[in-house]
């Protein structure tokens, strides 16, 4: 099982009323000098081995449903498992998580 994370953000030129509301609320709470844009994070637990084909499928899923590329950009990346799990599960393949992380792509 591998976890793939899809981050979706409103395009920079598209107004983000939610981000603006959060920015305003933060300022009222004394957190000044920050400007917020709000997006979405999807965690996809993918069964079986995460091959390049499976990752391409996730990208297609992101483009088809998770993001509306008219107004949003998305980023697909493989989340590395926690270090303690690494030692147990990745015997003899210490390079794998790093390789997977490189598959992260930008699209939209």
């Amino acid at each position, binding site marked *: 099982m591998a976890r793939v994370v899809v981050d979706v953000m*409103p395009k920079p030129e*598209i*107004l983000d*009323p*939610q981000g*603006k*509301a959060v920015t305003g609320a933060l300022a009222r709470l004394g957190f000044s000098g920050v400007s917020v844009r709000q997006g979405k994070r999807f965690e996809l637990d993918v069964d079986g081995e995460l091959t390049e084909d499976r990752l391409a499928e996730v990208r297609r899923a992101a483009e088809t*449903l*998770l993001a*509306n590329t*008219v*107004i949003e950009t998305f980023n697909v990346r493989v989340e590395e498992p926690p270090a303690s799990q690494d030692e147990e599960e990745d015997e003899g393949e210490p390079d794998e998580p790093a390789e997977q992380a490189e598959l992260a792509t930008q699209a939209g």
Partner: protein
Amino acid sequence: MGRRIGPKIGVVTFPGSLDDEDALRAVRLCQGEPVPLWHGNDTLDDVQAVILPGGFSYGDYLRCGAISRFAPVMTEVIKAAESGMPVLGICNGFQILCEAHLLPGALIRNDVRVFVCKDQDLRVESVDTTWTSELTKGQEITLVLKSGEGGYVADEETLRRLEGEGQVIFRYINGNPNGSYNDIAGICNERGNVVGLMPHPEHNVDVLTGPTQDGRAIFSSVFNFLSAKV
């Protein structure tokens, strides 16, 4: 009564649709034959036009219209729209049409960050569609607007094309209620058979429940188009 049976107009009900009953009623009041359609069906029951009504289909989860766009009935609606059948998307229906790429652009949260519910003044900008032929270019009408995510956005090239090709059909006047680019309240596809608008013509068909009956022209336009076609 001897009333002639008007054209069969389908109204799709999705889980979370609110204005499907009003749309069916508007069709009936304007002398059409309303046909309820269910989102989970993969047939359009021989209707001659389809209305996607307002509401909060699938709870507006993910994005407004994003899930509904993949409902089984939408496969048929998209096919029918591409072959020229008149399709009208009202409010949430407009959002669904944009998500389905039957119309360009997208609807985002109102720039005023509140749900807007008001009698909205509009100018009719184009009458070359199956849903607006009974209106007059430049005519000013008033329809109910009630939406939280009614801000129409599109890239500059799309906006130029919409404006240049007469695909902007309704524009907000006397104030832009939601931050829509170019004050756009409604658009159509290149062919003019698919129309989406944020305001609700189905709420403006009866003296009892609306300040105007300006919505009637939308329904009679499509009836005339359909009877002329036969």
